[in-house]
């Protein structure tokens, strides 16, 4: 498993992925943070609620993480794509047979690769967090935002819990991408099915099914990213996602270890 972990890290060090996946992640986080602060105004009417926040709200302890909060769902989609591409490319390039000859213990190979992607994902999310914080501190004075509460113990606690929830949520999306790539043996199909399910399909289901927020995985992952909601607690969200995670892990490991590699 250590070999699989190290070899996947070597693979993830390629420039295209760092500039593409990592750059997309950081660029998007920066953009959301900049827009969030630049659009802040003294007052926000009820119609403007959503992406508009007031200077007073941004001056609160949790003002620092507003940008990260908004970036959460799309960070998850990017992570789904990165994981799906990492696993799906083994099938499309035919490299999987080389990998399996060198590491025939398939579950170890799968787990090692997954752990490397988790490490990569955490590093990218940490970098995104740093970018967001630096930009927020840099832009705040120009909009008259008081940043003193951001560095209070409450502010730091908010930053930590937001990063934690965002990381878990993004890795959940990534796990979904990895599982779909193994099941469909293609990163393109995995990405199509994953994004298609999480965005339009779940949105429609959630609109039609009042209990959808309790059970739909995409809805739950978004809820996890925002630290839970009044209707679905963080504990319930975590338990349901944990159960889904176990089912997905067992199904993926079984599929990967039993299926013939014929191309």
């Amino acid at each position, binding site marked *: 498993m250590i070999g699989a972990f*190290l*070899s996947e890290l*070597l693979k993830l060090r390629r420039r295209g992925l760092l500039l593409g996946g990592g750059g997309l992640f950081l660029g998007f986080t920066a953009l959301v943070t900049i827009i969030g602060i630049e659009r802040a105004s003294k007052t926000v009417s009820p119609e403007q609620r959503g992406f508009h926040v007031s200077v007073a709200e941004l001056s609160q302890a949790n003002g620092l993480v507003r940008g990260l909060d908004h970036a959460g769902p799309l960070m998850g989609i990017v992570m789904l794509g990165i994981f799906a591409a990492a696993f799906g490319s083994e099938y499309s390039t035919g*490299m999987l047979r080389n990998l*399996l*000859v*060198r*590491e025939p213990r398939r579950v170890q190979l799968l787990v090692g690769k997954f752990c490397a992607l988790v490490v990569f994902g955490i590093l990218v999310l940490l970098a995104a967090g740093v970018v967001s914080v630096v930009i927020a501190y840099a832009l705040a004075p120009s909009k008259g935002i008081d940043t003193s509460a951001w560095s209070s113990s409450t502010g730091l606690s908010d930053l930590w819990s937001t990063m934690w929830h965002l990381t878990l949520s993004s890795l959940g999306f990534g796990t979904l991408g990895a599982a779909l790539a193994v099941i469909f043996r293609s990163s393109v199909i995995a990405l199509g099915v994953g994004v298609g399910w999480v965005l339009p399909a779940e949105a429609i289901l959630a609109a039609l099914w009042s209990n959808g927020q309790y059970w739909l995985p995409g809805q739950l992952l978004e809820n996890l990213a925002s630290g839970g909601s009044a209707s679905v607690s963080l504990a319930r969200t975590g338990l349901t996602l944990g159960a889904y995670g176990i089912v997905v892990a067992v199904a993926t490991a079984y599929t990967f270890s039993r299926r013939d590699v*014929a191309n």
Partner: protein
Amino acid sequence: MYGQKAVVNGLALELPRGVISGFVGPNGAGKTTTLRMLLGLIRPSSGEGEVLGSSIAHPAEYLAKVGALIESPAFYPSMSGQRNLEILCALGRHDAHRVDQLLTQVGLGDRGGDRFKSYSLGMKQRLGIAAALLPDPELLVLDEPTNGLDPGGIREVRGLLRALADEGLTVVVSSHLLSEIQTICDHLVVIDDGMLRYQGSIDGLLGAQTAEVVAVPEHASDLTKLVEVCTAAGHSARIVEDGVRASAPADWAPELNRRAMAAGITLAGLAVNRGTLEDAFFAMTDDDSHPIRAHLSDPEVTP
């Protein structure tokens, strides 16, 4: 089994250590399926087998000592040849110093830093062979290793495989190029319809074929007389262009020379056509009634 069809059926292979074994068969004969089973990529629906003394049900027990190139060489296209090897090296926990050494050995020393997708087919093939050699294997399985190589490259690979076998490595080469198999292999396995047709030495297979003695008389008017000399000695013969072809053992050629001289025929040429591997292969895979196939199906001939 693939659907209702048995792709490989009752195939009992015995590959001697330290020699180069050729693995041949028509398209769809089950060669790649067999190799994939040996490498743990697909599971047999039933039966058992051993590689290097370990069961194929537990490929992890022997694959650390096996190198393989199956079908076309497959690597990450946007990464360099060197990085691809480093990734496989890390995965198998092999000595990282072997990467540069192997790239040089297969003639990619100065192109290791280039992206795999920029390689020619021959270069990709060389990289595949380098990857197969990464674990310093005891058994090397190569599927079409000379595919895409130029004549110089083919000769280099041939030399490399011979050198590896001389060091005690067991090499299995699957190829459609029968002349190539005949040139580089010592031992041969022929399968067809998923069943074993022959396994043994190439010399043994070729020796089972009847040779042809071709005699060209000085005067064309002696052709018919020369045929009579052959048939009188119990060998069938026919006139072909300006000579006579007799189905006879190679060592009968001097006797034919003596008999022709005794009959007053001066020979302008005398040659022996030994059968090629290609002749033997088609005899085995095309025609059930062919004498060679019948001969090879004799359990005393097939080891």
